[in-house]
């Protein structure tokens, strides 16, 4: 009977989308709303402007890096070296702070971090080596360079009270913590770059179909190179936040960040195959992970419970995403 009725409404079927497709398209927003609703109902303190700022602040370091890495992933590559690079940049800026002053330390840190990023970009963009292995090698090499630089010792800033370096990690503008501000502003700017400029569209093209992009005259080498410069740049920004907040650094402070960053990017629905993704969704992905962390802590669970929840959330999110594209829930192997 229903089939009969449906047959009188031509065109309707095309517009209807199945629940699966709906989740595939809007899953990340649904998840964000779900997160907020559940934690707001379960705890008293979750739903407040203050706590929201705390969440953004906690997400700011991983989020800032994730924004740059999103460009790399959309371009069809991976960057596993950002964790080591974060350690390197943080150690460098903190160590140079006392030696040459913050005014010189910050530009120097950016120069050296971008230099390492350009090595990644050269090896992967120009020599066309596999990005996973190159950045894996760089992960260990950069860690080594950091340790050689410090001789294995931790570094810290001696006069922590009277330096304007504290601005990036500890101060507020109009009640908004600067780390959160850096994170959000970078996110907005780079989202515009990604969507509204030729550069952004070319990166989608290179990640989506390299051969087609090549034949349409895109300079693949240069584009891939620039995505790695971008991820090094956002990593340097994150190092600024981290160094300023802690006013010191261990040699392995960024260890494991590369995978947490990737978790945020993947949760945001950016395909590891390249060619699709968005900064806004990456930011939401990172925020969801931070909310899970924050909410579970408010509920009184130990911090490591979040890892278990993260596991489930990542797999379910990517599963729904893939299932929506495939049109059915299970694979056909």
């Amino acid at each position, binding site marked *: 009977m229903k089939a009969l009725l449906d047959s009188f409404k031509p065109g309707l079927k095309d517009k209807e989308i199945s629940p699966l497709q709906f989740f595939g398209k809007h899953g990340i927003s649904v998840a964000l709303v779900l997160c907020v609703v559940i934690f707001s109902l379960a705890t008293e303190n979750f739903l407040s402007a203050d706590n929201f700022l705390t969440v953004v602040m906690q997400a700011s370091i991983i989020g800032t890096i994730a924004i740059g890495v999103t460009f790399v992933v959309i371009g069809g590559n991976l960057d596993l070296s950002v964790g080591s690079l974060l350690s390197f940049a943080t150690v460098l800026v903190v160590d140079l702070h006392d030696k040459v002053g913050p005014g010189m330390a910050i530009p120097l840190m950016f120069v050296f971090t971008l230099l390492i990023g350009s090595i990644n970009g050269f090896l992967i963009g120009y020599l066309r080596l*596999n990005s996973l292995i190159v950045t894996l090698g760089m992960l260990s090499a950069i860690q080594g360079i950091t340790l050689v630089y410090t001789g294995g010792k931790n570094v810290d800033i001696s006069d922590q009270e009277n330096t304007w370096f504290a601005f990036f990690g500890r101060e507020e503008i109009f009640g908004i913590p600067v780390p959160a501000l850096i994170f959000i502003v970078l996110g907005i700017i780079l989202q515009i770059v990604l969507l509204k400029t030729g550069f952004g569209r070319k990166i989608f093209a290179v990640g989506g179909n390299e051969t087609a992009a090549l034949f349409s005259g895109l300079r693949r080498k240069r584009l891939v190179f620039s995505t790695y410069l971008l991820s090094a740049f956002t990593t340097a920004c994150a190092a600024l936040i981290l160094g300023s907040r802690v006013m010191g650094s261990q040699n392995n402070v960024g260890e494991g960040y590369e995978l947490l960053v990737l978790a945020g990017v993947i949760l945001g629905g950016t395909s590891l195959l390249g060619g699709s993704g968005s900064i806004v969704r990456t930011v939401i992905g990172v925020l969801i992970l931070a909310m899970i962390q924050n909410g579970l802590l408010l509920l009184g669970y130990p911090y490591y419970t979040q890892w278990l929840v993260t596991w489930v959330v990542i797999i379910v999110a990517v599963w729904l995403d893939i299932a929506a594209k495939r049109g059915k829930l299970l694979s056909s192997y």
Partner: protein
Amino acid sequence: MKSIFDIITKQPIWIFVLICIIFFSFSSPFFFDLSNFTNILIQASTIGVIAIGMTFVMINGNIDLSVGATVALAASLAVGLQPQLGITGAVFVGLLSGVLIGGLNGIIAWKTGVDAFIVTLGAMIGVRGLVFIYTGEQSFYAHDLAYSDFGASSLFSVPVLALIFIFLIILSHLVLKYTIHGRNVFAVGGNRIAAKEAGIRVGPHMLVNFILIGFLAALSGVLLSTQMGASTPNLGRNYELWTITAVVLGGTRLTGGYGSIIGTFGGVLAIAILRNGMNLLQVPSFFVLIILGSILIIVLFIDKRFSEQQGHGVRA
């Protein structure tokens, strides 16, 4: 002449191992020594046992990032449950946990079709959470000394840990080379769709390999805890990266379809010899990180140039 060229291009890592052995033998009086060699084998066995499983998974065209966390889980269970279950029972539960984690990864990858990289990335984070929940952030110590005695014991004056490692290398080499399962590993990795059309049950096949690597990671964790007589919740951090490094050094391709256990063995030895030799020369261990990272990229570069010459880059 051609065969030498073949070896250099196909197994460049063994050349590197040879150079390392010669170099360290001349520069350190303590290096070329049987007891030092067995030392190297023991040091290599931790990563090596996992690398065997990783070779299967990577030739399959998959990857497993959760091995480091599995090492910690198995070690914590095998040491922590000893008061309740005794050594045998605790070790059994530890190994079982690896099988279960591997099985879970495999079933998720099979049924959902989510890429193994993402499945195991999730598991890597989640299993570490399980370890912390179980241990409550505590380290465990084996009170029964028989446990740590096993880690230090020898058979025919060869340490048991080294024997287990060598035995597993030989066994897995034979399995990969001479069994149906072994041939399927290459077939599935080379072309998944063609393998499916040819009647290989791709999903269950990959599941078996994930169970294998889960078991081997757990075994590595148990063996490591017998060496220390203890377990810590942070055990095995970064092991996934070291293992992948070793396997890639050994010439296995990330894209799947190509690789060998012998190559992996070379990769594992290269890392262990480099660490051991640099240690004997009293070079700070950080330089090892830089050298290993560079070698990884150089091996990749050689491999890429060679495959482009030979097959115009068809093998990716």
